[in-house]
């Protein structure tokens, strides 16, 4: 076993005991990364920064009292602004952009002594469910179906993060989740991913997609790692007015493994037609695991579930069209070559046509349409009203004593790269069916790997928690993780 396969928890303990150095740990990840170009997970490698940070971490560890994340090598999604390091949101419109500032999340991680190995692949501007809209080309899932060499999607948008963690290229990675972009790729690659409550983690310095839905979170090899990593990311930030000024509890200490007497809601509206029997069976097994752990399982209703996807695909593009208005070829990134006589309007239009990929263009235009005069009430305001109803559905069941909600994470296991190329955009959007409600309601949600399907591909379940109760949610996830005993790893082919 090499050091790059360690969990954060194991590496932390070994680093503190000086059984391993941060430099050696970092080197083992850098070696694994260089041997894994076939996964296309790391799109900007930063070995010099990593080694410098690792040396500093070793010095800090030697003097004692270093934080838990000190010396831990991480991958950073390309959506986080990293000072002096390419930050492109996987878009050609940000080609060459090197921020003059550091995002709050990466600042906090670096202050805790963490090591950045490089930037990770993703869907362009985090818009996608398969990592196929990236300007870098798609990332590849380390998992393959039994006896097959067909390349599969690692999911999206945090596909590079998921592939890198699942293939042990880093100990953990940052992700972001607007409609499922942490949880769906985590489920597709057999890892853990948590989207915290909206406002738990600062969004400052994260390239904005849909500001009322975006939230960053960790993607890790275990629930304990998610607790440790989230601890280092979370907390109030004066630079993000929507970040919550609330104390951050000790997430790792919350992992007691005791959920006796807790109430687990099973929403009947999540039993969808056409969902593979294997997903349904996995869900049933998960329910039994919670019951065996002493929780009370209760059927619940979230009546507006069906309308979450259409509401999301109004609200998210509307916000995206506003947020992406800043890419105009003036302040940063790409500017189109202009023809004789072209004015500023031609500059905007050509720059944005060249810089944005097809899915981003589509969403910006849909957002523009639903916000335009005459349609604002019919689409955008109606969607926001439906969003209020979706949030109320959750508030009602939590008020009735439900502690957490258990659902499938995805409607299928990982699908083939290119398999959806002839599908309509709406068919791709269906990937988010179980995850998107959580973003609309601003709740915390976590995907935990629970089993393999008949093809030998990982499947995950999702737990949804009460607002600001990541501690309780992580403990429920910990119980599920221990009961499931998921230890399978992708067989190395890359």
């Amino acid at each position, binding site marked *: 076993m090499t050091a790059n396969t360690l969990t954060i928890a194991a590496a932390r303990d070994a680093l503190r005991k000086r059984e391993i150095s941060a430099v050696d740990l970092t080197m083992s990840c850098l070696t694994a990364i260089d041997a894994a170009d076939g996964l296309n997970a790391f799109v900007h490698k930063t070995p010099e920064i990593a080694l410098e940070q690792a040396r500093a971490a070793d010095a800090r560890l030697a003097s004692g009292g270093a934080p838990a994340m000190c010396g831990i090598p991480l991958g950073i999604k390309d959506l986080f602004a990293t000072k002096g390091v390419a930050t492109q949101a996987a878009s050609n419109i940000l080609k060459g952009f090197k921020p003059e500032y550091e995002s709050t999340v990466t600042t906090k991680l670096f202050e805790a002594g963490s090591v950045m190995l490089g930037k990770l692949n993703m869907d362009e501007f985090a818009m996608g469910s398969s990592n196929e809209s990236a300007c870098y080309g798609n990332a590849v899932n380390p998992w393959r179906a039994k006896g097959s060499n067909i390349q599969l999607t690692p999911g999206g948008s945090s596909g590079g993060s998921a592939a890198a963690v699942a293939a042990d290229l880093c100990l953990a990675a940052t992700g972001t989740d607007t409609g499922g972009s942490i949880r769906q790729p985590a489920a597709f690659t057999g890892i853990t991913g948590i989207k915290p409550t909206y406002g738990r983690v600062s969004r400052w310095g994260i390239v904005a997609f849909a500001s009322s839905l975006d939230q960053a979170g960790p993607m890790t090899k275990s629930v304990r790692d998610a607790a440790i990593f989230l601890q280092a990311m979370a907390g109030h930030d004066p630079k993000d007015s929507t970040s919550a000024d609330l104390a951050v509890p000790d997430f790792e200490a919350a992992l007691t493994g005791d959920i006796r007497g807790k109430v687990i809601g099973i929403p009947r509206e999540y039993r969808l037609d056409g969902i593979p029997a294997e997903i349904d069976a996995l869900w049933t097994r998960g329910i039994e695991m919670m019951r065996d752990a002493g929780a009370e399982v209760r059927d619940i209703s979230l009546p507006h579930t069906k309308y979450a996807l259409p509401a999301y695909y109004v609200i998210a593009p509307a916000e995206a069209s506003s947020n992406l208005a800043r890419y105009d070829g003036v302040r940063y990134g790409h500017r189109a070559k202009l023809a004789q006589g072209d004015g500023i309007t031609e500059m905007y239009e050509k720059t944005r046509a060249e810089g944005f990929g097809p899915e981003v263009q589509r969403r910006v*235009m849909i957002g523009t349409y639903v916000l335009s005069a005459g349609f604002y009430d019919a689409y955008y305001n109606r*969607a926001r009203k439906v969003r209020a109803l979706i949030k109320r559905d959750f508030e009602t069941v939590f008020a009735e004593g439900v502690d957490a909600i258990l659902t499938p994470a995805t409607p299928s296991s990982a699908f083939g790269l290119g398999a959806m190329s002839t599908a309509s955009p709406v068919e791709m959007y269906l990937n988010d069916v179980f995850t998107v409600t959580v973003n609309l309601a601003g709740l915390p949600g976590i995907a935990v790997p629970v089993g393999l399907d008949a093809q030998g591909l990982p499947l995950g379940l999702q737990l949804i928690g009460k*607002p600001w109760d990541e501690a309780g949610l992580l403990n429920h996830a910990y119980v599920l993780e221990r009961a499931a005993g998921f230890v399978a790893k992708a067989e190395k082919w890359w």
Partner: protein
Amino acid sequence: MSIDIDTARKVAKLARIRVEEEVLPALASELSGILTFMEQLNEVDVTGIEPMVSVTPMRLKRRQDVVTDGGMQDAVLKNAPLAREGFFAVPKVVE
């Protein structure tokens, strides 16, 4: 509601994205497909429901209205595709 070619052209213009004339029919049909999906929202009774404005019920923080940052012209212009004499440079806007 379906989007015709003229509407697609107008939306592209509003979004400041150049779309070639021959691509407009395909774009119109794609956007129409997405809008049809959204029309499910019309089934929901939203009478008396206020549009959601805040994800979590909290008052946004305020701070003193004072300058807290600045004096970094070079850093601000560092990533500009074209900068001249301390300004962002763009094609002529006013004739």
